[in-house]
């Protein structure tokens, strides 16, 4: 009897703890609001943060950015040219209709259709064919042996699975949503807030824990800080590290994690004197990255090489590069060797977003010490994009989003035909390594290739990699289970609950 009682009590306790996890309404303050809701079209950061909780891809990221099954319950790289996904059964869209292989095929057709103009089409340009095998498998055949390099794309919002019936009924996905994710979009008041509600059909049992998430848009940091202190919101994104001090531990919880996106100086490799790799290399020694992190980010960040130090096993660490040791004397020497003993003058184009202007000021001061005179030209973001696109700059300061997959991180940026190679950088060996890395299957060999590439990129510096800032969120003490991912995704809202 006593034993029975013990078991009963344990069970009761377990149920109690579990029950505590369920339910609740979370109010989260974000800086920006979505620009459009079509998962295959959106490029805005804020759209991704909402839609990743509404739609599902074949795969998704796990806590350590490992790829885990999602709509696909299994995936298999049969050979470097072939990936097969087994589609999960009993997945339902928010409107209650079941998800089938047809919907998956339709989604990729829609992405690849040039009329859709989806950013994801570029990811899948080397896909030869997509076809269904039986009624629950999908096979991707590739033109190049790049199966492993392709996989992370399946976890992105732009590769979400949409309902064929819903789209073909003429619905505008920019305005209406119908996904399979843990939450459905219940209300959107532009300029004010978005309400996500628990999807009762969600295929992961007992998830999500929250009944409702209200995302309120608060562009000003002072408002987010005050709203959090005042109890108007439960959790908020904080951009200015100094503001964290306003939240006493105990009453508040602080979440911080490094991110994959990184600050960089982009250099026009066709303009003098930057057409000389030695000049670009010299700048590395003149820049004190730690000092930038200390001054601009108040220590909230990490120095990064071509890949974030988090991206293992691929990334070489900053200490692996001689260029990362601050050494103004050597910088002067190299500049003298390159024919610029008295330095030179150039313009840095940047905008006032994300503290770019402050990074520029610190770099201006650091370069002045080796006789290089940088003129900062602060422009509005639209003007910046125009000049970036047209390679109309000596150098610029900006931020790139990073990836856990070296091919995704490097190919489009540094290949002489890469779509974002606005640096006009061209090096046959780099092109060769990029092609090799993309098509090599053996991890050890791939690692060698990308090691060489990383060293070459730092040596030649079409981009000077600076640092990755930490992302910071603050919540009140009642929020539990909230996690940040280095790719800045908020998919763990599905495991968040309020005490």
């Amino acid at each position: 009897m006593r034993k029975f009682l013990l078991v009963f009590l344990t069970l009761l306790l377990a149920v109690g703890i579990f029950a505590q996890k369920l339910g609740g309404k979370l109010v989260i303050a974000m800086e920006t609001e979505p620009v459009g809701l079509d998962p295959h079209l959106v490029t805005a950061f804020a759209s991704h943060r909402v839609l990743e909780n509404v739609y599902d891809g074949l795969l998704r990221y796990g806590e350590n950015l490992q790829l885990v099954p999602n709509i696909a319950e299994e995936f298999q790289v049969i050979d470097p040219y072939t990936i097969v996904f087994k589609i999960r059964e009993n997945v339902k869209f928010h409107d209650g209709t079941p998800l089938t292989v047809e919907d998956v095929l339709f989604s990729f057709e829609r992405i690849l259709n040039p009329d859709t103009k989806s950013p994801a089409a570029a990811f899948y340009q080397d896909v030869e064919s997509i076809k269904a095998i039986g009624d629950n498998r999908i096979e991707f055949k590739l033109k190049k042996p790049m199966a492993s390099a392709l996989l992370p794309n399946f976890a992105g919002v732009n590769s979400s699975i949409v309902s064929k019936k819903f789209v073909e009924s003429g619905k505008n996905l920019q305005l209406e949503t119908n996904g399979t994710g843990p939450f459905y979009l219940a209300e959107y008041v532009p300029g004010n807030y978005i309400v996500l509600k628990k999807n009762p059909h969600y295929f992961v049992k007992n998830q999500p824990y929250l009944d409702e998430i209200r995302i309120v848009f608060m562009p000003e940091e002072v408002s987010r800080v005050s709203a959090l202190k005042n109890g108007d919101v439960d959790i908020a994104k904080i951009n200015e590290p100094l503001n964290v001090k306003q939240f006493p531990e105990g009453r508040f919880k602080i979440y911080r994690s490094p991110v994959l996106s990184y600050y960089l100086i982009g250099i026009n490799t066709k303009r003098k004197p930057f057409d000389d790799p030695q000049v670009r290399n010299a700048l590395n020694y003149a820049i004190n990255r730690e000092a930038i992190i200390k001054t601009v980010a108040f220590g909230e960040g990490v120095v990064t090489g071509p890949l974030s130090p988090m991206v293992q096993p691929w990334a070489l660490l900053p200490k692996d590069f001689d260029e990362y040791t601050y050494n103004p004397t050597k910088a002067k020497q190299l500049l003298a060797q390159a024919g610029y003993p008295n330095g030179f003058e150039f313009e840095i184009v940047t905008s006032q977003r994300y503290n770019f202007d402050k990074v520029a000021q610190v770099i201006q001061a650091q370069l002045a010490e080796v006789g290089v005179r940088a003129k900062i030209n602060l422009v509005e973001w639209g003007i910046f994009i125009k000049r970036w696109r047209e390679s109309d700059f000596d150098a610029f300061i900006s931020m790139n989003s990073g990836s856990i997959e070296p091919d995704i991180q490097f190919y489009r940026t540094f290949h002489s035909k890469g779509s974002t190679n606005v640096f006009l950088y061209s090096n046959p060996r780099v092109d060769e390594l990029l092609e090799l890395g993309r098509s090599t299957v053996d991890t050890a060999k791939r690692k060698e290739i990308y090691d060489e590439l990383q060293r070459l990129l730092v040596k030649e510096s079409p981009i000077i990699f600076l640092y990755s800032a930490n992302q910071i969120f603050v919540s009140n003490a009642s929020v539990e289970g909230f996690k940040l991912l280095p790719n800045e995704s908020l998919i763990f809202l599905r495991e968040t609950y309020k005490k």
Partner: protein
Amino acid sequence: MSFAYLLRRILTSIPTVLFVVFVVFIVIHLVPGDVVDMMLGTQNYLTKEQIEQLYKQYGLDKPLIVQFGVWLKNLFTLNFGTSLRTGRRVIDLIFDRFPVTLELSVLSMFFATVIGIPLGIVAAIKKNSFVDGLVRVIGLIGLSSPSFWVGAILIVIFSGTFKGFNIFGYVHLREDFLRNLQVMFLPSLTLGLMLSAQIMRMTRSSMLDVLQQEYIRTAKAKGVSYSQLIAKHALKNALIPIVTLSGIQLGYLLAGTIVIENMFALPGLGRLLLQAVNERDYPVIQFVVMFIAMLIVVLNILIDFVYTLIDPRVELR
């Protein structure tokens, strides 16, 4: 005010509105970076052909003057356009956003006049006294404090002191009247405080002017009570410049107060316009600007009408 007068005023204002819209249209198209650039950002995922197709789809491949013509033509067929970025109808966006800005403007003007006019009167009556000096110094501080600073200070004070008072989280009046007023309180107080400084100064100088008039002396001689003298004889006659100023201020408020709407996370017209400019969302920019220009025109007519109420000698012909 005759109907003919009204019609004439409206008709003569059409060219003004169109001119404003035309200038804004040209300027926003001449600024480097267009809607396609903003859409792609620093990612280059589309081919050249796809990008050209986008320009064509949005009609941006045509000469500017043709684009303006197309927009005008659509306007006359009541096709106000859709946002290029979010796919929402521009007219819906205005319907959603304008009530917020209208409420904010009206409440701000309420605070501005309730604070500004009495202080101005007191300063005028007690000219050159300590009270006058104090009011003038306060006015000067109000004039020179930027709204973002005043707003931030008020937020900090309120968020610490009054627990349970909703500073953020705008809801429509219909949904939750009390919460709406709470959320609107601080932003309208911020704007009201700033505007009250101008109104106060205007009231003071206007009152001083009027108080020296002979008819005031006559009224005094007649034995009119002091309060009646101030309220009926002096203030009413001093009101015209105050109304003019308030009208200008109201127009400025209705055009959307970007800083305050951003700071208090209010979904008003100013924020809509700012976002549209940032995104180069041409149809939204054009229609919002036209809407604001029309508002100012209507407001001016209304102010002229109010003149006739205050001073029967003013006649609108």
